[in-house]
């Protein structure tokens, strides 16, 4: 009988054979219990760490994206192509006029639209000055697109027709335009003298502070209503009056840029401290309408951009397919409106290169670190399998003598190593998921670090870093651990199979 025929016969009961080698593999793992447990722990730790880190990165990215869209940009911007190309320089001379028909067309197509005039300048307070990026906004429309005005640390959002400013928290602290948290006795006395108009107001202000030698701290338990009253007193006293100094760049028909120096008197009426650090730094928001006139920026209704978001989008929503630049342009066409040729719709990703670079960098760094850890733990598996195969060289020789083929032997050791990977993977999946639960539900407060970096570290998160569940990674890492473990057994098995059967049988 030709052995080829036997091969076909043998294949008929592959299932029983597989069952048998799984059973042998399992018993061999039990036989070397300590080694198996140690290797399994190594794999489990790697898998758990990978799941944990991946969930953390995903959480930070999801939160960052939500915060970018909800507090900083919206889903897209309409800008002139010329402005977009130089957007890092904030070239206000590349602004465009006639924004209202565009905004109306967007609104009738199912979008919220918020015009903005962005310019730079210096803000002077009584205590100092700071370079600031100003956004002239239409408060009503801005509210429909973005939500940062819901996070005012103090005061309110500026009203139309006024030179009122809502200032980022960090700039407000630097210019001492915020609610003072810590004062010396002298500073408190001066503050009371400047702010209180009646003895009752004096007592009220003094009552807000608790003495903790040698200074006074704003009490932690001050109710919001009292803080609002205190803020109103500060604003009314003129302490929050400020001056904006800026240079208006006007593009003449010849293409030449003309510079006009302008000074505006303003009042800080609100302090922004939203979950997106970009709104809380050296940034100010003020009504767009007052900037149009001669006492403003001589704009004649010009804006640098229109922010776009789907009407009624929630804070937690990421931009959907309806909010892509192509979809927005298509929606405008459907309502019979076409953008002027100089204007384009740009997606939000175009404006957050810093975040994308940070996220990509962290992604690569973290994954490389975890990969190294994986390599270490898989070296453990490779070592375990190498030892197991070396110890069982004689057994391999005997199995070959019994008629096991090279493929069957490779498969049997792959199953054995794969079982270590599988056990480690399952334990790692459980450990990683357990570690994720508090990270998803509560997160870690990094506000101190974020503040030290002025909130400028790429991610748009101010305080709480929260993880997010990623079932694909959780399941995938278990599968990958199993497969890699199984594959790691192949080289030592092939090496053992190179040895003649007779030599394997003599091996001690």
């Amino acid at each position, binding site marked *: 009988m030709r052995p080829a025929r*036997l091969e076909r016969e*043998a294949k008929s009961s592959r299932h029983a054979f597989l069952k048998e080698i799984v059973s042998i593999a399992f018993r061999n793992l039990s036989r070397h219990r300590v080694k198996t447990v140690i290797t399994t722990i190594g794999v489990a730790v790697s898998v758990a760490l990978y799941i944990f880190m991946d969930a953390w990165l995903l959480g930070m990215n999801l939160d960052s994206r939500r915060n970018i869209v909800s507090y900083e940009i919206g889903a897209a911007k309409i800008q002139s192509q010329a402005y977009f190309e130089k957007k890092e320089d904030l070239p206000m001379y590349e602004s465009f006029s006639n924004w209202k028909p565009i905004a109306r067309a967007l609104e009738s197509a199912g979008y919220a639209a918020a015009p903005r005039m962005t310019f730079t300048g210096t803000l002077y307070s009584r205590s100092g000055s700071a370079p600031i990026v100003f956004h002239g906004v239409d408060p009503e429309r801005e509210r429909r697109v973005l939500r940062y005005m819901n996070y005012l640390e103090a005061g309110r959002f500026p009203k139309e027709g006024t030179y009122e400013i809502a200032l980022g928290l960090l700039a407000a602290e630097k210019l001492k335009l915020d609610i003072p948290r810590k004062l010396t006795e002298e500073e408190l006395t001066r503050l009371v003298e400047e702010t209180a108009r009646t003895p009752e107001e004096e007592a009220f202000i003094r009552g807000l502070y608790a003495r903790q030698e040698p200074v006074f701290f704003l009490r932690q338990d001050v109710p919001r209503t009292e803080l609002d009253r205190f803020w109103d007193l500060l604003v009314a006293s003129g302490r929050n009056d400020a001056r904006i100094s800026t240079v208006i760049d006007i593009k003449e028909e010849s293409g030449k840029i003309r510079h006009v120096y302008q000074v505006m008197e303003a009042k800080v009426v609100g302090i922004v401290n939203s979950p997106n650090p970009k709104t809380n730094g050296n940034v100010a928001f003020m009504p767009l309408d007052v900037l149009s006139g001669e006492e403003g920026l001589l704009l004649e209704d010009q804006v640098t951009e229109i922010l776009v978001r789907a009407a009624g989008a929630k804070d937690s929503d990421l931009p959907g397919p309806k909010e892509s630049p192509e979809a927005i342009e298509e929606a405008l066409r459907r309502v019979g409106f076409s953008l002027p040729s100089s204007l384009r719709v740009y997606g939000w990703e175009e404006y957050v290169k810093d975040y994308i670079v940070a996220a990509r960098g962290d992604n690569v760094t973290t994954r490389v670190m975890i990969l190294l850890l994986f390599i270490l733990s898989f070296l453990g598996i490779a070592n375990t399998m190498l030892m197991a195969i070396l110890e069982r060289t004689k*057994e391999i020789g005997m199995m070959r003598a019994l*008629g096991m083929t090279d493929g069957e032997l490779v498969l049997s050791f792959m199953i054995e190593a794969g079982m270590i990977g599988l056990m480690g993977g399952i334990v790692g999946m459980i450990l990683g998921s357990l570690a994720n639960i508090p990270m998803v539900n509560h997160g870690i407060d990094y506000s101190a670090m974020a503040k030290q970096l002025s909130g400028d570290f790429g991610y748009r998160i101010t305080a709480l870093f929260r993880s997010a569940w990623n079932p694909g990674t959780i399941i995938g890492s278990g599968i990958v651990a199993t497969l890699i473990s199984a594959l790691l057994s192949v080289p030592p098995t092939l090496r053992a199979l190179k040895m*003649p059967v007779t030599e394997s049988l003599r091996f001690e």
Partner: protein
Amino acid sequence: MTVVEARNLVKDYTTNGLTVPALRGISLSFEQGEFAAIAGPSGSGKSTFLHLVGCLDVPSSGEIRIEGTDVSTLSRKELAFLRRQKIGFIFQAYNLIPVLTALENVSFPLTLLGVDRKEAKRMAEEALAAVGLEGMGNRRPKEMSGGQQQRVAIARALVKRPSLMLADEPTANLDSKTGAEILELMLSLNRTLGTTFLFSTHDRMVMEYARRLVHLRDGIVEGEERKGEGQ
């Protein structure tokens, strides 16, 4: 029927650039049902001959036919299937799978052959009973004596009803009483099943049991004795 046919078998081993001849042109053939021993002192080439016949090693030159098939024409995989189907091995050191019970060790070759699990278990139990180990199927090798392990090894080799049984010094690790019992067992299996047994040995007792005795010395056949039945 000729089960094994070896023609001009030569086997050289090269170690550290030095070539040592193990077999120097051996021609032997064995018919179905023979109970033969290859005898000779250490280094005579008896184990090498057995390994070549068992397709565990390849000759430097010469030809081996198992039931008429020239094994040099077979691939590595086909050789494995040939061993699986037609050849049973009994090793000096028993070489049982330590994590399997006696019953599982015996049924393992049947699993390789694709025999149904239940049927394999039944056949393994029968084989264990045939070697006098009835009721000991659940024991692991380390829970058994050397003689019992060798019986399990015989049962494992026999369970698949091979045409050729090769036993390399099967009694070397056993005391003389157990050795004699094992030889009796193999002889009775040879008689009842008609399986061809081929031993390598330098044990006088094995030689006495053998119906045909081939003497090897320095890799060549020095002489041959045939004994009649009942001797």
